[in-house]
């Protein structure tokens, strides 16, 4: 077993729990930096896409996993980010600046939606965000030459000093850096007062208010930040796929994102990565399994969304802490072997908590 001795308060708010953990991440980082120079093109592209899903997932995790608000329309923010980015490019704004502006624009949209929608909670909020996503999709479709309408448009490529943005290695490095910065910013926020306020709202709105936390203000803030981060992922995604049209980001994308945070593990930064790996690999697994199934199932059009939806529900019921939660249990099992008690993770009876403000 590993015991961490604490000698200074600073240790409790470091980004890493202890030196061993930090070193593991350093090794991982070195591997990720070396990867594009040894892997084949195809895998470099797949990894870049994984990083983009991680960034989008970070945005939604902040909202769902850390603030306890559900959005069924986060694809809309990806779309807003992607389109803003590409349209800015068309009007001559160069690549790194356009991405930042795209993030700010979807953040601003998130703020406006947040102010309107956050008076609602739970299912009402989920439905409102769903409606919003639908409106954005239609709006883009009707946008004429400005948004490329239903036919969409090509995404411009950039060249700086002889290197092209769509070069797999260059794009990989851009995605990796964006992801690391995003995770670092979120990690910082979570160990600061604002992050704690989000978590407080997630756990008990009543108590949060009694602690002087302004619910409307912090929920709106969380929504705006979440929309901004997801928008940034959308902007990168535009370069990845090279062509945009309204159906690039649909309700299915929103569900995939929701699945990422739920399956990965709500309220965990590791969960973002696990979840992103899961949603990236699942379509490939489905494709493999599809060949083994009888024709009348495998040729059905809705197979993929159906599998996604079923897994989402299964996780909500059987493994609410997600893949990361399962990993924590496995790790504890080995570190305490043979003293592991199954009841360690049993939910304690939540003592007579009532809906009323008792």
């Amino acid at each position, binding site marked *: 077993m590993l015991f961490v001795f604490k000698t200074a308060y600073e240790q409790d708010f470091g980004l890493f729990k202890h030196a061993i953990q930090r070193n593991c991440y350093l090794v991982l980082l070195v591997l990720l930096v070396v990867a594009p120079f040894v892997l084949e093109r195809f895998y470099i592209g797949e990894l870049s896409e994984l990083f983009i899903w991680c960034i989008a997932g970070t945005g939604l995790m902040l909202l769902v996993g850390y603030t306890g608000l559900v959005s069924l329309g986060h694809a809309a923010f990806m779309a807003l980010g992607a389109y803003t980015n590409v349209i800015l490019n068309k009007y001559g704004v160069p690549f790194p600046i356009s991405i930042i502006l795209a993030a700010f624009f979807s953040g601003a949209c998130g703020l406006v939606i947040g102010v309107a929608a956050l008076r609602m909670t739970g299912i009402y909020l989920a439905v409102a965000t769903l409606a919003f996503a639908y409106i954005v999709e239609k709006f883009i479709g009707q946008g004429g030459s400005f948004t490329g309408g239903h036919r969409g448009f090509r995404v411009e490529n950039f060249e700086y000093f002889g290197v092209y943005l769509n070069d797999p290695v260059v794009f990989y490095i851009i995605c990796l850096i964006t992801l690391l910065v995003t995770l670092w*910013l979120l990690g910082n926020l979570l160990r600061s007062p604002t992050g704690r306020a989000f978590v407080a709202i997630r*756990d008990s709105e009543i*108590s949060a208010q009694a602690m002087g*936390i302004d619910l409307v203000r912090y929920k709106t803030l969380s929504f705006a930040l979440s929309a901004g981060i997801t928008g940034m992922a959308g902007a990168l995604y535009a370069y990845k796929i090279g062509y945009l049209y309204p159906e690039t980001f649909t309700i299915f994308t929103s569900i995939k994102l929701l699945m990422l945070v739920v399956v990965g593990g709500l309220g965990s930064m590791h969960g973002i990565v696990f979840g992103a790996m899961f949603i990236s690999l699942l379509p490939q697994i489905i494709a493999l399994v599809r060949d083994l199934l009888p024709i009348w199932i495998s040729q059905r059009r809705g197979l993929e969304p159906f599998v996604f939806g079923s897994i989402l529900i299964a996780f909500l019921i059987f493994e609410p802490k997600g893949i990361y939660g399962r990993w924590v249990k496995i790790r504890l099992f080995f570190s305490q072997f043979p003293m592991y008690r199954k009841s360690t993770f049993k939910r304690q009876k939540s*003592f007579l908590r009532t809906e009323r403000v008792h």
Partner: protein
Amino acid sequence: MTLLVADSISISFGGVKAVNQVSFAVKQGELFSIMGPNGAGKTTVLNLISRFYDVDEGNLTFEGEDITQVKTHQVATKGIARTFQNTELFEHETVLSNLLIAHQQHKNTGLFSEMFFLPKVKRQELSFRRRAEDIIDLLDLQGYRDQMISSLPFGIRKVTELARALSLEPKLLLLDEPSSGLNPEETEDLSFWIEDIKEELGITIIMVEHDMNLLSQVSDRVLVMADGSELTTGTPEEATSHPDVIKAYLGD
């Protein structure tokens, strides 16, 4: 000096008058208790003071300022902290973070400095932590600092909630049945802590309580309620020997 004045406050839910024209004034440094049979409206009075409910009629004044209309989250900033009858903690957090959430109402960092965890954010975290540790020491929570609330026994949760309320550094502390669910030893500890909070920290307390021993041991004055109305107010002896009170408890 009076700290809090409730001037004939009332509230009804549907047809039920949960609190009916109740008036009282709590002096600075006083421990003012509220007792009464189940459903008398005691918790509702605390909910009115902490602005979870809006008063239908009447006024609340805190430090000479009318707080009848302030927003719920501003109550803490004004210096009023509370605990809940069945505890209402941040379940998926540790004891320490529960306290830090309370301490941070005095924060002076903005979103951007926090995102980059600038030195001033770090300094602020250290000062919150030191203050949280003072309260952990005061209430003997050292062993539970890093434990998740969801894994704690009820008694410790109650103490944690008291610690969290103290972390707001309030002038007025509202306690809703602090001893319910505690065993006799824990209740004994609680009575010492309550006296410490009152005498050493100089915090004024309004306490809803059923335990007669605790009540008469620590209270300066007691308000007795039944069916939403005031029966009597006085010293613990006066209140408990009042004929209406005896009648209310024994039933007619």
